[in-house]
């Protein structure tokens, strides 16, 4: 009887831009039609929007775990997983079933509660961080005014959870892995933030959608006005890229879980579903930090060439995301792991000074009108550390002819 009294408003028009918001719109429309109170509609809409983002990236995680193995295989002239389903497309499902059905082992010396909490707390910040990134012109899950700050603030939680994982396991390898991970993440967070600061200075806002808006338009009619195509933005972007590899614990900075040295780092004592959660947190973190890099330097959802606006903006975002993730895979396939002292020295003696130099460069860029004069002033400024590094590299660090005294 009450169903008959349901009053459905006409379904709102769905444009291609707002296509990812379809579930949210649908749920809101249904609830409103059934006469739900306004707060319920609001909350349900938020929940569904959040679920959309989480769903998309959980699917992305599953797909990436397959694509990563395929790409690594191809880089080593192998085929990669091709048994489960068509071209191995069901491999993530098989992996997931395997992970879920495995025994959940908790070491006798472990702190039970912290051991349980750590994998959960490692996924949560990644998901929270994914919430503030603008994926499209209209697809912004949470348009925060302090989006960038929020991103870094929740990112700080990862370190605590890694420490919890390492310490609660009650054995040596996790402890060593956690210590490595924390020192690495603390060291690389600094240049990461400094690189992002340059963008904030030039854009004059901490809101990620606004930062993307500021990168709209084209120079000379075809060069997109992204931050990457400015001298300071190029340097900051590259540094940001390197730092994000380290923050995401990816090869060649995957010391915290260096298999050949400390088994699996802080994840050593985990099995089954908790282990899968660690992996999920890691990959979601990778998505989040790549998304942030795209937002800050690669123009977010802006099209790369004029006249391509008929493609929905979120497709551009995900195309850029795929490209960035592929570059991560390529780097993983290529480079060997660095040593811990090399890693720390690189962070403190190379990354941070270079990142600090991008700040005055960005300021000069902003106050000299972003024209020819800006190029003339900022390019030499940014080249200084490069020249210094080249000299040091060639004078002291470069590998020369190796002499083996005791080898045959």
């Amino acid at each position: 009887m009450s169903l008959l009294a349901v009053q459905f408003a006409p379904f709102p028009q769905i444009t291609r831009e707002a296509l990812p918001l379809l579930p949210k719109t649908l749920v809101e429309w249904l609830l409103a039609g059934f006469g739900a109170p306004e707060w319920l509609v609001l909350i349900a809409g938020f929940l569904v929007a959040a679920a959309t983002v989480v769903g998309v990236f959980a699917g992305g995680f599953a797909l990436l775990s397959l694509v990563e193995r395929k790409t690594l295989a191809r880089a080593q002239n192998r085929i990669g997983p091709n048994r489960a389903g068509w071209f191995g497309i069901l491999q993530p499902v098989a992996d997931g079933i395997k992970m879920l059905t495995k025994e959940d082992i908790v070491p006798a010396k472990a702190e039970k509660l912290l051991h349980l909490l750590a994998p959960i707390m490692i996924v949560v910040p990644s998901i929270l961080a994914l919430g503030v990134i603008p994926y499209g012109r209209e697809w912004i899950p949470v348009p925060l005014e302090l989006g960038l700050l929020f991103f870094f603030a929740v990112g700080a939680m990862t370190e605590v959870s890694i420490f919890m994982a390492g310490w609660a396991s009650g054995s040596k390898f996790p402890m060593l892995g956690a210590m490595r991970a924390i020192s690495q993440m603390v060291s690389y967070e600094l240049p990461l933030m400094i690189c992002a600061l340059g963008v904030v200075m030039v854009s004059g806002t901490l809101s990620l959608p606004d930062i993307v808006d500021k990168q709209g338009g084209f120079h000379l009619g075809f060069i997109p006005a992204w931050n990457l195509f400015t001298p300071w933005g190029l340097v900051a972007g590259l540094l940001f890229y390197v730092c994000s590899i380290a923050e995401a614990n990816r090869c060649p900075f995957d010391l915290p879980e260096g298999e050949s040295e400390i088994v699996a780092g802080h994840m050593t004592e985990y099995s089954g579903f908790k282990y899968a959660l660690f992996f999920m947190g890691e990959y979601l973190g990778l998505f989040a930090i790549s998304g942030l890099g795209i937002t800050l330097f690669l123009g977010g959802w802006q099209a790369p060439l004029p006249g391509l606006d008929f493609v929905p903006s979120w497709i551009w975002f995900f195309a850029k995301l795929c490209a960035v993730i592929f570059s991560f895979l390529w780097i993983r396939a290529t480079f060997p792991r660095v040593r811990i002292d090399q890693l720390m020295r690189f962070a403190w003696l190379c990354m941070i000074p270079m990142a600090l130099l991008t700040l005055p460069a960005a300021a000069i860029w902003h106050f000299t009108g972003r024209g020819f004069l800006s190029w003339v002033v900022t390019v030499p400024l940014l080249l200084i550390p490069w020249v210094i590094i080249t000299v040091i590299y060639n004078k002291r660090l470069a590998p020369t002819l190796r002499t083996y005294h005791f080898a045959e």
Partner: protein
Amino acid sequence: MIPLLILTPLILLAALGAVWKARPVHAALLLALTLALNAILYLVLSADFIGLIQFMVYVGAVAVLIVFSLLITRPGDEAEEIARRPRSLVTGLACSLPVLAVMLFIVSRFENAGQAVADARSVSIEQLGTTLFTTHAPAVMAVGVLLTAVMIGAALFAREPGKKTQTPSDS
């Protein structure tokens, strides 16, 4: 008001745990929890920027730093700590309870005067930045000098004596 009512006991419980727990790492983790809840309290009080900064600096840096130095140094014996507790607690309470009494007394007197209750006050990031670099510019410079000095000082302190080329530790 309701978020405050929920948060306040949580913060107090976490702080109590940080003070009470005998195992140093537990205390440090509970400190991190206290600080995080504090950040949420700031968010509830519509001081968004301060809340996020609190989260970033305290949870991301200070708590991690404390936890990290707990790992490097070997914490003392827990049993000893617990055994010593009754005696130290007496002195501790004897010193801190009067302080608490004084403070609570002032608060209870203050309540009568506290009439000006603003219902909604938030601050935009532009406002904050402008105030920071105009009214409080000397303080910003002072803090900048302080932080630089601290960075150099901490690096010098933490350097292993006897080694010339040591990477500065994270501080």
